[in-house]
């Protein structure tokens, strides 16, 4: 499988190129999505998306209400309630700030409001630390959120549009979190192609909450108190929505490709050199870059290795991953997160993947790498080390422990 190629066709959908950080790319996407309400609150490393948005508003490039909230909890609630009246709304946070507003994040999902948040992945306090770690975004995985990781600024820009499209679909109506590695994507600058407003309008329909919009013309009571007579039925409704989201995601990418050119072959993940691979690593976010470079070097030495860059975490592409990973002898799951005391002490991604592979009759050997926490670099050499664990396993030399920590001082 090849990496998604930049296609030269469909020149007319692109307006210009600009040098942007990951955050700034998202700001432009928010502008192009004609977002109506933005609530801001400062926390590294996502803040810059809000800086840029305020500049776009001040310079008249975006017409939106921009509220500076008193806390993340208020910030997320402002976004949620703006969405409830039919305004397309945007917010964001990182690390401990994201956790501060957790109550609001849960209810936004159970209220089925399609808001979008940028999560600039950051290590959780205490102690304070700014570097990348995925626990923040992952904390909403159970509640009924759409959650995807972007690896490049271009991908992030495009996924703002795709995620609004999916979230606002009447069959879905779930909030969405777009995660990007703190510092390594939020702050690194890339040349990004900005689409035209017309192209975006073609792809992304206006936000229409229909009969749930809070407006005097639509008298409803939203989220009345319920008790044992209703909760399990509501959960089932939301569970179904998360299942339906998969089909809507496939549709959305097809529509996206139709407007912008065939940019995404596979919505769920991208495969690199996996065609004849024995061993693959799979991970989220910018760790793909040293991993893919490691693949190239190992291939030069004749090793059959590949990399799967997972994009969507929720809804989790269970069948697609079963079909993909089932082909290999060994699969190494890279967790840039922690799950202390979990089954076999594995990371969060490890548990999800191991669990989805369980039904396979012939399962690959699975091993877990915990690495890169709190912004620790992950080097190409370290990725090679990870592959070697897999290659050994494929050759019959299996480690006892599920988890290997790589990159810490020990």
């Amino acid at each position: 499988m090849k990496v998604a190629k930049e296609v030269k066709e469909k020149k007319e959908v692109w307006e210009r190129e600009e040098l942007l950080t990951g955050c700034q790319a998202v700001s432009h996407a928010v502008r192009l999505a004609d977002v109506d309400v933005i609530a801001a609150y400062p926390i590294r490393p996502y803040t810059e998306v809000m800086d840029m948005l305020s500049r776009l508003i001040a310079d008249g490039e975006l017409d939106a209400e921009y509220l500076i909230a008193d806390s993340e909890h208020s910030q997320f609630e402002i976004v949620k309630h703006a969405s409830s009246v039919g305004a397309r709304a945007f917010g964001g946070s990182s690390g401990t700030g994201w956790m501060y507003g957790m109550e609001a994040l849960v209810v936004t999902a159970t209220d089925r409001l399609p808001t979008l948040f940028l999560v600039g992945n950051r290590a959780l306090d205490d102690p304070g630390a700014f570097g990348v770690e995925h626990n923040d975004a992952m904390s909403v995985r159970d509640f009924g959120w759409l959650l995807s990781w972007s690896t490049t600024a271009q991908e992030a820009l495009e996924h703002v549009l795709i995620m609004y499209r999916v979230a606002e679909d009447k069959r879905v109506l779930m909030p969405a979190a777009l995660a990007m590695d703190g510092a390594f994507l939020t702050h690194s600058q890339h040349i990004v192609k900005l689409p035209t407003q017309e192209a975006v309008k073609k792809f992304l329909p206006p936000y229409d909450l229909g009969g749930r919009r809070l407006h005097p013309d639509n008298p409803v009571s939203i989220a009345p108190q319920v008790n044992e007579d209703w909760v399990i039925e509501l959960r089932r409704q939301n569970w179904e929505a998360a299942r339906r989201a998969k089909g809507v995601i496939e549709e959305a990418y097809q529509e996206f490709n139709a407007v912008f050119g065939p940019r995404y072959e596979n919505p769920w993940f991208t495969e690199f050199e996996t065609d004849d691979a024995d061993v693959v690593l799979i991970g989220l976010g910018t760790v793909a870059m040293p991993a893919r470079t490691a693949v190239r070097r190992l291939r030069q030495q004749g090793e059959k290795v590949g990399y799967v860059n997972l994009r969507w975490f929720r809804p989790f592409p269970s069948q697609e991953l079963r079909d993909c990973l089932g082909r290999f002898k060994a699969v190494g799951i890279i967790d840039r997160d922690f799950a202390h005391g979990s089954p076999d002490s594995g990371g969060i991604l490890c548990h999800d993947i191991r669990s989805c592979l369980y039904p396979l009759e012939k399962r690959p050997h699975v091993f877990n790498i915990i690495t890169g926490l709190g912004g620790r670099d992950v080097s190409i050499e370290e990725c090679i080390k990870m592959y070697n664990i897999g290659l050994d396993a494929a050759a019959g030399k299996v480690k006892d422990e599920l988890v290997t920590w790589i990159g810490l001082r020990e």
Partner: protein
Amino acid sequence: MVQTKVDFEKIKNVRETPLEEFYTSGHRTCQGCESALVMRDFAKAAGSRTIATGATGCMYVANTSYQTTPWIIPWMHTQLGAGGASAVGMAAGLRALMRKGKIPKEKINVINFSGDLGGGDMGLSGISGALQTDLDLLIILYDNESAANTDIQATGLTTYGAQTTFTPPGSKKRIMHRRWKKNVAAMLAVGHPTCRYVATASATFPALDFLNKTRKALAIGGPTFIHTFDPCPKGWDYHPGYSRELGELGIKSGIFPLYEIVDGKISYTYDPRKRGRIPVREYLEKQGRFAHFIDEDFDYIQKRVDEMWDEWELPGVAPFKSGLELVESAK
């Protein structure tokens, strides 16, 4: 001192009160619940072009229980501490949509109601943020002096010494609740100079006062705040029929000051300095939550209430004592 004239449709006498309800029968509030009357009144005063959010609390759980609703106007639940943020989100959303031509332009009242905790403790941060904006919204703090929905616990707005499940009078400690009630309305007025309207009110005394204060707040423009005084038969332990009487006694004793601040100018709805103050005992002894009080306790409260009206520079409003003089520049 003349107050800013606010152009609004004032209800001049009880017979002119609009008859239609926008919050109607069929809610699980206690018999005699004054907070329910506050809901009824603000909805009635605001009318049909209104959207409201209710923070978690009695007025959430008791009203929309078990998936039914007494609301005729559109209403949405919001989190306990999210009252202010919900009002901001709604108002900003509507303003953006109207400005960008996505929905028709019209005046839509945006109202949030929060209880003790949502309005005076947890939710203060969000309300403060809301009162700094330039959005048209009204936040109502319905104060029944307890966390009532969780079966009566003390909050920052509970009267000194009151019995609640967190502050029971015991054999070693008679008074467990030693905190003095927070002065929320005035605190918000002092802290937000661009907020044009802050008031206190009660649903029943004087008649129509709260209805008109709601209308004024909605008409004046910008963020506004009303703190209502809601006798609670369950938490205060008195026979529900006496809710109105207790509200009146609380106000006449000076324990709950009734006033309006419009563009920084205070006007007293009930001025105990002119109309007299009854002893606090007459109000407190009628409630079971003070059944453990002895003279010492009544005296303490009386002393503090006397201070509020006799010694505060802004009587009943702000605890700055008289005698503040500008210091002359150093000689």
